[in-house]
Structures are given as C-alpha cells and as structure tokens.
C-alpha cells in the first residue's frame, strides 16, 4: 500500500497554522532566511533548475527554464501567482490558501529573491472568499513582522504582495488571460509570442507561477536539491542521444474525486499508477473502473485498460493525455460517457472567452453535436464504408471489413480537431483552451465509441457495460500509439 508523503500539506491540519507564530514553530520562514543568508539569487535559480521542478498549474513546464527566459536587465519585473484554480476537478490550492497561507508567502519571497522581483500579484479565484481573507490576513501579519514590505529583515530586499480576486471566468486561469484581467481588461488570453516571461503584466517581464509550484520552493531550498530529486522518477528523453534526463521530481497534490470511497486531496510522489491512486483514495466505489480523467476536465480520458499509466507529466504526455492540474476524476460502470462529455462540453462552451474564431464558434458547435447525440437525435448514415484497423499484415490499414457510418461522430471529431488537432497537438486558437475542448471531445469519442454509437443507434442515452463501452486496446489507435517512458539508470 502506497503511503502519502506530505510535504506541502504536512502541517495543514495544525491548529492555527495560518498565524505567523504557529507557522514559525514549524520552520516557517526559516527556509527563506536560509535562502537570503546562504545563497545568492542565481544559486536559488540554479537549485530550482536542478531540482527539475515542473509547473504544477497544468502545462508542466520546467520552472527553472521559465525563470531563465526572464530578461535580467528589464525592471520592474513582476511575479503573478496563479491562484485562479478553475479547472473542474481541481481543489488543492484552495486548502493551501485557506489553511496555510504563510507557506505561499514564503514561496513567493524565495521566488522574488531569486528573480529580483519587488511586486507580486496573487490572482485569487473570486469564489475563494475565505482563501483571500486568510491570505490577506497572513500578508498583513507577515508585513507587521517585517517579512514583507520594504527592507525585509534588514537585507534591502523589498517585496509587496497584492491580492486580486477574479470575477469567475475559467479562462482567467490561463496565464495571459490572468494578466489581462489583472490589468483591468476583459479576461482574454494574449497571442504568444511574446510570452509573459518577456512581456507580461504592464508590458514588463513577468513570472507566472501556480500556488503549488511556489509552495514547493521553501522545501527545495530548505532540504536541498538532492533530497527533492529522490522523490519521483526521472525519465530519459529518447529523442536525444544519449537520452536527456526528463525529471518528474517532487510530490504532487492529487485531487481525487468521483467514484472513490475517500475523495480528497492526496499528496503523493509523482509517478504512481492510476490503480495505486484509487487504492490510496479508499478504493473504488462501485464494481469496476470505467474511466479515469487524469488531469482536470480538459485532459484526455483513460480507459480501464490504461490504469497502469503512471500519473506524472512525462508518462501521461506519452500516453496522449496530461497530468494538468492533477484533478483526477474516477468513473465507475454506472457512468455514461456521452453524458459526461456533454457535461464537460457545456462547461467549455459556456466558458469560452469568445476572442478567437475557432473556439468562439467551435465550442458551442461541439456541445450542440454532443447534445444531439445525448438526446438520441444523432445521425447515422444508411451506407457503410471500409473499416480501418489492424489489417492482416499486422499494420494499421484497411481490414477488409465494412463499418457503419455515424455522421455525427465523424462531424464531432472533425470539428473538435479543427479547433485544435489532438493528433498533431497543434491548435488554431490563441490559447490552449482550444485543445482543452477538443482533447476530451475526441478522446471520449474514440475510446468509448461503442457507447456513442449505441446512443445514436438506439435513439436515447444508453449506458453500456464497461467491457462493451470501451474500445479494445487493439482497436484503439491512441492506445496503440502510447509510449511508456523508461526511467534513467
């Protein structure tokens, strides 16, 4: 049985840990003091780079690399802490904000010291009223104790933190959408490049980091890179010769919800499998696993054949899915995948900011198609066509059999792929919202095609058994394509 390894959440349950004094008893701000006393700013950046810390917000981009893109000669430079935790299925940052806000402040201080930043904006999701209240109180307390404001601890370091509540838009969690919203404009993502690291808040270089990423910094500084890298696997990127190390180090706050007995946030090492995770969360509620969403609602779904997939950034990327924000949603045999997709598509059609063409008019279109299928009005053609699959020669091609044509499924796949192509991982949209829409749409439809077909054929919402509903691995192109990464020696 896998055990939780609580680092970020270690003292979450300590009474009054949100106050400065109690936090101080549990090494609070000692890591920051260690940073400013023992290390130069560049040392911290190097430690973060060496630790292999990847951004926990969703994209999984190397934090150290992101910091290295920030021009050193342009000041002021800003830090934006992304606390707009809006991905459905994700709720880990909320607990940090509500219960241990000083940990976030310490992480911000270390980042600011490393990058020479004097101003930090914490963009908090509007619904997190308690989180904002706690963080504001903690900021006031830290300022009173001399850990924030001008000339911190007499070192000449100035850091100010401002909290900014969002107004409830999903897209304001996207880094440039967040910046636009912070600047007081309509929350619409910017076209990239330039990336925020070069031109962000108020056209100045900006580091945008998730709450969880920043909360990792005190532990990297406090316990050292060596300690940090022993957690989680490091894979070899086989595109390079010799393989380039691809670290998935540290712990991750997995938000497990859905059909498990003990849903909640679990802090575990990266690299555990789905099966292990469900076990940690008290086991499955129901007979069998039908599907698992591994990283928030925008991540491609995993079938029960793929439960051995390790839940880390690299493995999931190679399995044509993503870890995203770590919002894991487990579904048992009673769930109807068409209905699930409809629910998700309704959300995305509602949350599309409407800035760029494919997303503005593609997302409601996809929703309408799924709605039609769920209503039993999906279209099926009267003719058949050659079936593609594993052919006689053992390769992908014409199998010699025929299959029925479900026009709406083809349309769904085509429209979703026109917003963002999930096979080539390219999007025609400004931001990654496009792929967040087409990923679930296409993956649900491809992996659970029998259920979609049944809905169209029967003219009503039909829930098939797990075995019937899932495409067999040998028929599932995505499954065929999946790569299991190898750990470095």
């Amino acid at each position, binding site marked *: 049985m896998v055990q939780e390894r609580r680092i970020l959440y270690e003292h979450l349950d300590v009474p009054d840990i949100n106050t400065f004094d109690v936090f101080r008893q549990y090494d609070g701000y000692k890591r920051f003091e260690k940073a400013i006393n023992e290390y130069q700013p560049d040392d911290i950046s190097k430690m973060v780079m060496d630790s292999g810390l990847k951004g926990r917000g969703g994209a999984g981009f190397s934090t150290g690399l992101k910091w290295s893109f920030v021009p050193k000669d342009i000041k002021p430079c800003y830090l934006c802490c992304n606390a707009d935790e809006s991905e459905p299925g994700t709720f880990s940052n909320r607990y940090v904000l509500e219960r241990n806000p000083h940990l976030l402040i310490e992480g911000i201080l270390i980042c600011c010291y490393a990058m020479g930043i004097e101003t930090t904006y914490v963009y908090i999701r509007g619904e997190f009223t308690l989180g904002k209240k706690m963080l504001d109180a903690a900021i006031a307390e830290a300022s009173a104790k001399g850990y924030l404001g001008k000339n911190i601890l007499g070192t000449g370091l100035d850091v100010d933190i401002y909290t900014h509540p969002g107004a409830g838009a999903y897209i304001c969690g996207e880094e440039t959408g967040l910046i636009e919203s912070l600047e007081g404009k309509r929350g619409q993502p*910017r*076209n990239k490049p330039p990336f925020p690291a070069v031109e962000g808040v108020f056209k100045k270089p900006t580091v945008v980091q998730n709450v969880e990423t920043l909360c990792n910094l005190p532990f990297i500084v406090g316990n050292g890179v060596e300690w940090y890298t022993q957690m989680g696997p490091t894979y070899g990127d086989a595109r390079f010769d010799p393989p380039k190390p691809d670290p998935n180090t540290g712990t991750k706050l997995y938000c497990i919800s859905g059909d498990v007995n003990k849903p909640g946030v679990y802090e575990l090492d990266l690299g555990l499998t789905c099966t292990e995770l469900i076990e940690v969360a008290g086991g499955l509620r129901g007979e069998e696993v039908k599907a698992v969403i591994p990283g928030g609602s925008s991540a491609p779904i995993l079938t029960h054949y793929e439960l051995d997939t390790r839940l880390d950034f690299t493995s999931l990327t190679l399995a044509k899915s993503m870890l995203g924000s770590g919002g894991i949603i487990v579904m048992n045999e009673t769930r109807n995948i068409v209905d699930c997709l409809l629910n998700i598509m309704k959300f995305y059609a509602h949350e599309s900011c409407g*800035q*760029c063409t*494919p997303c503005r008019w593609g997302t409601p279109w996809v929703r309408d198609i799924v709605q039609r299928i769920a209503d039993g009005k999906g279209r099926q053609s009267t003719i058949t066509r050659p079936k593609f699959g594993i052919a006689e020669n053992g390769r992908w091609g014409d199998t010699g059999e025929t299959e029925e044509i479900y026009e709406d499924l083809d349309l769904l796949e085509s429209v979703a792929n026109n917003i963002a192509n999930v096979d080539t991982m390219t999007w025609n949209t400004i931001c990654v919202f496009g792929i967040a829409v087409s990923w679930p749409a296409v993956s649900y439809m491809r992996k659970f095609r029998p259920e979609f077909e049944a809905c169209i054929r029967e003219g009503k919402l039909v829930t098939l058994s797990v075995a019937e509903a899932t495409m067999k691995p040998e028929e599932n192109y995505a499954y065929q394509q999946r790569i299991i990464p190898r750990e470095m020696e």
Partner: protein
Amino acid sequence: MAFIKLNDLEVEVEDGTNVVEAARQHGIEVPHYCYHPGLSRPANCRMCLVEPYVFFPPAGAIVPDRQLATGCTTVLRTAPPDRKLDGKYDFIVQTDSPRVKKAREDILEFLLVHHPLDCPVCDQAGECDLQDFSYRHGHDKSRYLEVKNVPPKKDLGPDVLLYSTRCIVCTRCIRFCDEVSGSGELGLIHRGSHDEIDIPRNHGGAPLQLLDNKLAGNVVDICPVGALISKDFLFKSRPWFMKKTNSICAGCSVGCNITLEYKEDGVYRLKPRFHGEINQHWMCDDGRLGYHYVNSDDRLQLPLKRVDGELTPTHWADALALITEKLLGTEAADVAPEDIVVIGSAQGTNEDNYVLQQFAHDVLKTTQVGLFGQLPGEEHKFPQFTIEADKNPNTAGARTILGAANGNVVLEGDALWERVAGAKVVYLVSGGPERPLEAAESAALEKVDFLVVQDVLPSDVTQLADVVLPGTTFAEKDGTFTNSTGWVQRIRKTIDAPGEARVDWEITQQLAKQLGGEMNYHFAGEIALAIAENVPGYGEATHQKVGDEGVKLT
C-alpha cells in the same frame, strides 16, 4: 533588410514588416480579418495563419514549426549571423502549404457557422472579405445543422447601424474607437459565442453613449463584413455598380485622400484612401457625409441675370455678353482697373485660381485680388487624427497662386470687405457647400455696382449678384489642391456637372477671351504646367508627378 524565403520566392523586406504585409508586397494574398495596418494586432480571427520554418536541433534540420503562426504578428527581422536558416535566410515561411490551406478552410467554416447568408440584401456584398475569402479559400458547403445565433440589430449612432448577426467579432471597430478616435464608445458584451459589439447601455437597454464621434464612419469602412453599415449609404447601391476614382476630400484643409464612388446620377459615397503622411487610413464624417451638396437638386444649372430685381435664367452667351458690356462697353469708361476686385475661392483648385489671377492681372489689369472661402469651423483633435478648423481644401494653394503675379498681396478678411465696399465691379468665385454671409460681408457686397458670382448653389452671395455663373464642385473637375501642410494632391472629374454648369477656369478663360485676353488652356494639366513654371515652390507639382500620392511643396 531581412532576406526571407516566402513560399518559393526569395525576397527582401524591411525589418519590422509582418508576414501579411511582406506577402502583399510580393503579390501573395494572406487572408485576414482582424488585422488592419492602422490598428493593434490581437490576432483573434486566426485567418492569417502561416507556416514558419524553424531549425529543430534533435533532427538537425529545418522543419515546419509545430504550430502555425499568425501572419499579422509574425514580424520579420534580420537574424544574427549564427541564427540564419540554411546559412542565408532570416526567415522561411509558407503561406500556401496544405496545412495552411486546411487551417484557412477550417477557420472560414467556423466564421460562417453563425453568419446569415443574407448577401442578397447585405450592403457589403461585393466588397465583403468574408465573401471573397470564402470564395477563394473556403469550403463549398456547410456542415452546421444547429440553430444559428440571432443577436439583435442595433442602432449605434447617427450614421452607424450594427447588424450583429453578420458580425465576426474581429474587434477592428472596438480597437479603432480605442486607438484612433480615442473615444472608446464600443466594446464587447457577453462572452463566447454570444459576443456582441455594443455601445454602453443601461439595464433597460437604453444607450448611455452613442457612437457619434467625428470619425465614427471609419468603423464602417474597416468592418470586413456587412455588420457595421452606414445609414447614409444603406440600400443605395451595389458596390459593383459604382465607378471609383481617386480624389481628395474638399471638406477641410487636411486634404484626406479619398476614393470617390459615383454613378452617372451623382456621387454615392466617399471612402478614405491610405496616405502615410496625411490621413493614414481614415477620414472624418464631416468630409465623408459632406458630399450631398454635389447631388443637390438646387444646383445652379444655367447662368442667371438680374432682370427687374429678380434673378432670371439666361444662356451663356447672354451672361458673358453682359459682363463684357460692363467692362468694355459704354459704361466702361467709369471703371478704372483699381475699381475691379477679383476674388478667388479657397474651394477652387489651383488651376481655377491660376487662370483667375491671370485674368485679373493680364486682362483686367487690376491688382485688387482677394480670397473667399467657407467660414472656419472647429478644430477636432483625436489621438491619431486631426480635423482642421479651415473648412476649405485649398486655402494655402489659392493664397499662393492668387498672389503669384501680384507681389503676394491677397486681400482677405476685413481688408477684403473694406475694399469690396468701394469697388465698382466685383468678380467673386465661390463654390463648395452653401456659404452664409455675415452682416459686414453682405453690406459690403450690396454696395457693389456690378457683382458677378461664380457658384454652385444658390446662396446669400448669389442673392446679391447681378450675374451668376454656374460653376462646378470638386467632383466634377480635374485639378489640384494644396493642403495646409503643403501637399499638392489631385482631384479628378467623376460625374458631369448639372445642366450647363461649367468648370470654373473655363468660364474665366472664356470671359478673358471675350475681353481680348490671350489665354488658351485646353485642360487642367496644361494649367498645372504653367503653375509649375511660374509659381515658386510648385516646380514639381505637375499632374504627372502629383499622381495619386501627391507632391510635397519644396
């Protein structure tokens, strides 16, 4: 200069040019909606996607970039020597690869999802980017079965209607109001597929602010589809039935470059034409909607003479004979050259005024030359545009040219009216929209024994005249205007003058001939050559050299 590979072409472009412009310079179309060279670039229409090439280290080769890039925001610059692609190119980009073509088709499909196909009743049809690009780059059929959004039609301001159904939310109009006019009336309301352009409204839907700034008409021009429509032009004509001629706006001394669109029965609309140093891409609504006097039914069509105190139509020979009689006949002994005042018009072209000053100097031998024009209006300054107070297109040119043979003495304002009050014969050229007279001005003109007026509309001035000669407007003649910053620019004849109205310089020349002058110009360009020869500073301002871009006075 950046050396780039554009499709199969190897071309050099200025540093800082974007791919859309670079392609346009070399005759390649990159379709786009949200991009406008005069506005910021949000890259939201996604129509101008192109395929850049990058060096991919693991493969050790130059490959198409994983993502397509928007051509409007991809700026071409000279790369440092170690970053050159293939050893020589600063950038490699494909605008017609299969991926790009597929992306364009897909975007067009999305654009047409909620777009009503009401082209038969849409004003924009024929000059619509959505039509053109769909035809050139799009699918031939729609796969959309769902219900289309039907947002309401809105009245945004005095001259602008919004057909929201046709809107493709490129936000050009919003950016125009934010950046060029600086008035910021427009914005987006709602979200996602329910995005609508709107003006500020209260909860009841009543407008709090209308789109009524003086540049508002430009949003209609920059709208790539038929969403923003000018009330002035609504349902007037199909674009393809109109002829288009490059001209200059006669509304004020800025001298905005325009395209004059007309049919045989009149001028239909004016649209701005790009000039980098004068009006950029824009023009003001005063100029845009100020053409109506050209089409007016009240236009003077026949010469008029005063019979028993009433202005009565007559024919040209009679009208001209009357004037000749006055200046050469029995009464002429009383009229010394100093008693004649010749007043040119700031509404007239340089050519009109040149012939007029020659008439005054060589034929009438008078040194009393004046300048008349529209009353000054208000100056309006916008972040990227200025409407000048002087409402005449050619004050600078008329002033220089009228004074060219006269020691540069041109009577204006009070000095002019003082002189007019003591004159026996006044030959006044007006023109342009109806110009009211102020009390002092009409008092001075009333004292004149014999007043000849050349004008296009009945006005206070013609009411006082003894002989009225029908002239022409800027739309009916060739010539040049000199704007306030010294640009000499061409206007061109588009429609025919109404009735027997004649080009102003021809009238003057005819009169000069009858009075024994030696003047024999055949067309305006010939006069421009004479101006170039005789007027200092105008050496380069021949019609050939002025062309469409204009010539800056030296």
